[in-house]
């Protein structure tokens, strides 16, 4: 692990949100982006993204696969711990593509991006409204998520 604090995220930086589940993709044959807004919805006030500037396409995919494999390993472990069957061949999370958007697009939507390592190149979309009213927050989060989805491009696997 690097002891040097990560640099602040510059406006022009490209961010990737990895798609690990079909539930984040529209299943119809629509024109345009297949990303659903829910891909960008926060959990506990943050949306996890990766800073992918300087990475080739192969490296971006490899980083996505690494994230997916780690999530799958964690999920498998959790299922087995609960006593649920989880056959070797089963795979819930795999890399299915990514949504890419610039930090500038996040900021002009009214949110912010801050580095959060480890893992390397990791950052969080932050600034999601937290009023204490669960439903009002959900409404506000959906609005921000739609704005982010509109600006993001889908890079399929």
């Amino acid at each position, binding site marked *: 692990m690097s002891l040097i604090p990560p640099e602040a995220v510059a406006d022009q930086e490209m961010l990737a949100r990895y798609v*690990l589940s*079909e539930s*984040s993709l529209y299943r119809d044959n629509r024109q*345009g982006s297949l990303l659903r807004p*829910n891909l960008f919805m926060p959990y506990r006030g943050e949306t996890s993204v990766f800073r992918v500037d300087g990475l080739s396409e192969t490296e971006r995919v490899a980083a996505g696969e690494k994230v997916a494999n780690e999530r799958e390993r964690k999920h498998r472990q959790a299922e087995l711990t609960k006593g649920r069957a989880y056959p070797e061949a089963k795979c819930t999370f795999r890399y299915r593509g990514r949504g890419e958007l610039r930090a500038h697009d996040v900021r002009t939507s009214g949110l912010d991006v801050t580095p959060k390592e480890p893992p390397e190149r990791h950052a969080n979309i932050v600034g999601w409204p937290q009023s204490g009213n*669960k439903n*009002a927050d959900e409404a506000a989060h959906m*609005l921000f998520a*739609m704005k982010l989805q509109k600006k993001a491009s889908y890079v399929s696997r």
Partner: protein
Amino acid sequence: MTATLSFRPTANLNANPSRATSSEADDIREKFQRFSESLQRAESLFAHPIRELGDAFLDCRHEDWDGYDAQPVPDEAYLQTKALLSQVLSAFPAPTASANPSGSLTLEWFAAPSRRLMVSLNGEQQLAFAGLFGSETVQGTASFLDDFPLELFWHLKRLYYR
């Protein structure tokens, strides 16, 4: 005395196929086959969105369904969303269904990237909604017990029949 009755199932049109070999018989057999297959594919006009909602629910019933620590969607959210959906399908185009990491089900009416409405239900009395209408946005909460929220009706009307 024991009577032997022949079994003639009524559900399958092709259960007792003709053994005739003429070209007319082949033609009729083929037409029956196609008709039978089309009946098997048939579903009601509103079956697809209901089925999509069911699929979304089944995919999101357990925690961490998205790989990013999402909360599970409770059964009550499914029943509530299905009730809302069944009230609106005859009046507006069918929405798509998905779930949010907070453990709610969402319906999204999509006219264009800048014209869309999302509604989120978690099984509680209040639902959340947000919409894009060009450069204008709406967001808020509404009560949903039995009747379709009037506010949502107006937003949907605005989305499709401006």
